[in-house]
């Protein structure tokens, strides 16, 4: 199978990570009454436009090496997306608690009290939110568009945020305490206990056209920021 090449998040400027769902549909055209019947099927796949701008010298050489390893469209890029729309744990516990709104007093105390400051009879409160990546609660078949997640990051994942399972990317449509509805439907069956990547969702992509490979090779010569179009890969 093709080689999967990880692309360092530092190479990509966050504001330019566009990923959207593309699809094909057909229509015979509008009828004489102006109404139209559209035929569609479930063939949505992620399309991305990656902008490489203002790279550090180290990142520049990395980009060239990635170009060499890509061998045109033969090999696969694994992209880590920035998921700033939802709660995530970036390695700093204090920053995590602050970002999800746990007061410093509660953090120091080690548990959260009721809103009026009351505690349980033994003086304890609610546990602080855990920052482990969430897991899937039950087995789900491919094609499903709802899943139950466990763990604070999963139960509180925001609408519009990304998550990924086995490098397949999904976007949250709806979330009630971890019962998440999402698009596109599950690419692959998942088993209970499988990890869901919320902090660093990943997606495997291939270059959309051979022309998208040239920028990797010619970066040094051309200098200006380069744009590369990519399309989701389904092989695992």
């Amino acid at each position, binding site marked *: *199978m093709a080689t999967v090449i990880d692309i360092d998040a530092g190479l990509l400027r966050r504001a330019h990570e566009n990923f959207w769902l593309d699809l094909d549909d057909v229509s015979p055209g509008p009828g004489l009454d102006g109404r139209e*019947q559209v*035929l569609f*099927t479930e*063939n949505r796949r992620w399309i991305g436009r990656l902008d490489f701008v203002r790279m550090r010298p180290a990142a520049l050489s990395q980009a060239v090496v990635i170009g060499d390893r890509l061998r045109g469209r033969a090999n696969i890029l694994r992209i880590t997306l920035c998921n700033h729309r939802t709660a995530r744990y970036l390695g700093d516990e204090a920053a995590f608690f602050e970002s999800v709104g746990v007061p410093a007093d509660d953090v120091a105390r080690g548990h959260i009290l009721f809103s009026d400051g009351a505690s349980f009879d033994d003086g304890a409160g609610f546990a602080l939110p855990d920052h482990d990546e969430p897991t899937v609660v039950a087995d789900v078949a491919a*094609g499903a*568009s709802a899943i139950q997640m466990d763990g604070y990051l999963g139960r509180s994942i925001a609408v519009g945020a990304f998550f990924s399972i086995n490098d397949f990317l999904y976007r949250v449509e709806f979330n009630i305490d971890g019962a998440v509805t999402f698009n596109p439907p599950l690419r692959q069956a998942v088993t209970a206990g499988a990890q869901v990547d919320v902090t660093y969702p990943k997606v495997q992509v291939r270059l959309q056209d051979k022309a998208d490979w040239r920028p990797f090779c010619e970066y040094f010569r051309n200098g200006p920021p380069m744009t590369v179009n990519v399309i989701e890969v389904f092989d695992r």
Partner: protein
Amino acid sequence: MIEFMQAQPEEYRDQVMDLLGRGAVQMAVMLHLDFVTDPVWLSNRNIPFTDLKWGHTWGAGGGLLVGLPEVSGGDNQLAPFREYRLGMPNEWIDAENWAADLVEMVGNVGEYRGRDSGLYGQLFDPDSNQPVGHPFAFDIGIMDRMTVSFPRGGVIVSLTTEGFMARKGVPVYGMQTYFDQKRRHPTDEGLQFVTEAGKLITWTDW
């Protein structure tokens, strides 16, 4: 439409009728090729589904199906050949001798010649993404020829299938010559001067 509905199980007929009348219809196109060792059930969805008639899982096929033939039919039509364009099997992507493997695959006629093929459609409920009713056939036939060509930077595998009624109505000795015609109809002198005329014969249609 009536025959179409009759082929659907009774409990789905109302729902199928409703789905067909909507402004946006979710429908998958599926292809079954009954190879001996590795029969395939492909669809143009990128997520597999299980049909309600046979219980087959119709998978995405990883880009195996590249081009569909134009399906035509009706009165006054000979049942024509269909030609499908296939991509390369996935596991061969990084094989050193994939070209040789392809030629071998095409040469192995016992694997495909005379075996079933079918092109189907399947309606889906757009809300639940689940199939509704049974698949319906666009074209049923048997696989006949497979050819492969290697243009620069690519490969094209063509698979020809023919209907069970392929070339129906075409005489076995198909030439419109005097001798062939005499063989079919010994008393017919109608093509006596064909060779001299050197023209395409078009029968009048009274």
